[in-house]
């Protein structure tokens, strides 16, 4: 199988879906003539023309509002919000219009739009927030966070074909990652976790850019004889609870890793779901979370290590839970 970068895989998903279904169109800032800041929409304008590949003014609320209206009338819009921090401007359209559409119209109308967005990770105070927990909290939204090129393509196609609004969160650190991607269009089902590493001692649940960090930690810990099972849920809503619960029943220890702030982060939801499940009686140690300690991500690279979770933090947390016999 040939390899593609993460951003190329996303671009291919968009192209194939636009080929397949003429209701699919893309809109956003700098996506048409410029091809997107991270080249995800490169070449689409040439192929599909300005009616289906639309450069918009800098108005996130207006972009999403347009997309919600189009979706309610049967279109399949794919919005790009350049940085996740800017999605806050569109919250009313997402939370109050798109997410509730199916409920308030008693199923007669629904809003099948996809809002693609991303964060820079090691970026700036205004472009590095991971706000997935804001959206997992809202009924009616699905939240997708692919960690590699294969999933990026398969999950974006699933998101576009999904009848409900999907928040599709990408990550700058992932765009250049290469991986095998099938040429044909394919889907990765929403709500199905995968296990990039299997192990018997500790379950580490991580998503988006943290999956690679967790894998690196797992490889280091394997040298110490600690078997880490890394679970990538791939989508937070719907969440593959069964997969995580089964793993914790096996290992008895759980570490959750996300780049987002610990307090109120989705890791808390995962921890609560596990303690509410049959896995509770298998827990050998407290559940640990590796996350942003509660600070805006600073611009200064020197300040990134304490703000952004890294491999050493994951290793520390795993050793910590291993101390409980």
């Amino acid at each position, binding site marked *: 199988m040939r390899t593609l970068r993460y951003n190329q895989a996303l671009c291919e998903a968009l192209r194939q879906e636009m080929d397949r279904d003429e209701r699919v169109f893309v809109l956003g800032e700098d996506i048409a003539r410029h091809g997107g800041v991270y080249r995800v929409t490169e070449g689409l304008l040439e192929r599909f023309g300005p009616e289906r590949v639309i450069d918009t003014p800098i108005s996130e609320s207006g972009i999403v509002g347009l997309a919600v209206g189009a979706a309610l009338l049967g279109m399949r819009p794919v919005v790009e919000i350049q940085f996740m921090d800017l999605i806050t401007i569109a919250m009313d359209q997402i939370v109050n219009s798109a997410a509730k559409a199916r409920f308030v119209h008693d199923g007669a109308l629904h809003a099948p739009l996809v809002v693609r967005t991303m964060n820079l990770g090691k970026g700036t105070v205004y472009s590095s927030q991971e706000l997935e927990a804001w959206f997992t909290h809202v009924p009616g939204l699905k939240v997708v966070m692919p960690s590699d090129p294969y999933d990026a393509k398969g999950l974006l196609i699933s998101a576009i074909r999904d009848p409900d609004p999907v928040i599709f969160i990408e990550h700058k650190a992932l765009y250049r990652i290469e991986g095998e991607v099938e040429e044909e269009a394919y889907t990765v089902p929403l709500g199905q976790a995968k296990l990039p590493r299997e192990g018997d001692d500790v379950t580490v649940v991580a998503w988006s850019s943290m999956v690679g960090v967790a894998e690196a930690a797992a490889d280091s810990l394997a040298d110490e004889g600690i078997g880490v099972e890394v679970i990538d849920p791939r989508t937070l809503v719907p969440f593959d609870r069964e997969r995580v619960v089964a793993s914790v029943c096996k290992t*008895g220890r759980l570490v959750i890793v996300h780049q987002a702030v610990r307090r109120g982060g989705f890791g808390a939801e995962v921890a609560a779901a596990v303690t509410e499940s049959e896995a*509770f*009686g*298998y*827990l*050998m*140690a407290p559940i640990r979370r590796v996350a942003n300690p509660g600070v805006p991500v600073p611009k200064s690279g020197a300040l990134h290590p304490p703000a952004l979770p890294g491999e050493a933090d994951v290793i520390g947390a795993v050793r910590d839970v291993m*101390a*409980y*016999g």
Partner: protein
Amino acid sequence: MGTPIKMPRLSKGMETGTVLEWLKAPGEEVREGEPLFHVLTEKADVEVQAPGSGTLLQVAVPAGEEAGVGAVLGWVGEPGEVVGAAASGEVKEGPERPAGGKERSKAGSDERRKASPVARRLASEHGLRLAAIEGSGPQGMITKSDVEEAVRIREESALGVEAEDERQEQQDQVERIPLKGIRRVMAERMALSKRTAADVTTVVDVDMGAVQALREHVAVTYTSAVVKAASLGLRKHPILNATLDEEEIVLHKGIHVGVAVDSARGLTVLTIADADQKSLRQIDDELQGLVEAAKRGTLQLEEVETPTFTVTNSGVLGSLMFTPIINPPQSGILGMGKVQETPVVRDGEIVVGVVMYLCLTYDHRIVEGAEAVGFLQAVKGCLEDPVRMM
């Protein structure tokens, strides 16, 4: 909320008591004033009455467990009433404890032990009490491997027991009596005594002819006479009225003589407070009253002092002499042998005498041999010349 049943303060200085037996089971009807449970204190086994009428709703402290004075042991109320921590915050803080009192009872029970969820589940599945498992995890948390180790040890000892059982069955049929309640307390206290005290027993013979003659005029028991004589001996030799408190020898000013009696429920110690200041007659009356009360289970111990020395009479059962075991933290115990007619040499003649052996076990950590024998001689002197006790 029902009426809480609390651990009563049954004697001065009582800090904790052990619930020996519940006379009613949860769900049974109870009338106010009706005997409800037995408490074992340092001094005696006491029957306690129900604080209210209704149904015994819940037992919070089961038989065999210790609780602080004032601790809620259970509730009496209307059937279906919600009781316990769920009903009010009152008992949530746990039993009231006297200042400086030790953490006991429920504090050592399973729900407050630090244990991982899996350890808790495994312990429960194997019927193991967490309180009995040492925690090796962070901050003493009981881990899964701690429970697995406990299970393994129990299985190994169970294998040992099985082998023992087989041997026993081959030899004879056996009856097994669970070691609990007063039996358990006795076992623990006796073992504690033997483990800690440097005990020595010394014996003198006492010519009891004078006391026997006295008894023809004044109806007192030999035990009362020995209690009186011992109290006077203790006045002369206060080191035998002392207790060892870690780094210090504590000499007690009050001479409170405990008398060990065998009741239907087991060994019970009755106390004659300030025995040296009471007449022989008073002591005898008091003792008879206590024995009666012990038999009826109506001992009132509120005002009774903790004994500082003990007298035990094994002679009534026919024993000639024995080596009594000190009741800790006391430093001496005086055992009475059988009072019997024996040939004795008096003024070069063999005559029929009335003799009793007095056996003193003392704690050589604090009592010197000369003191002990001096005390015995003093007691012997009083008994052979009862006028000294008048």
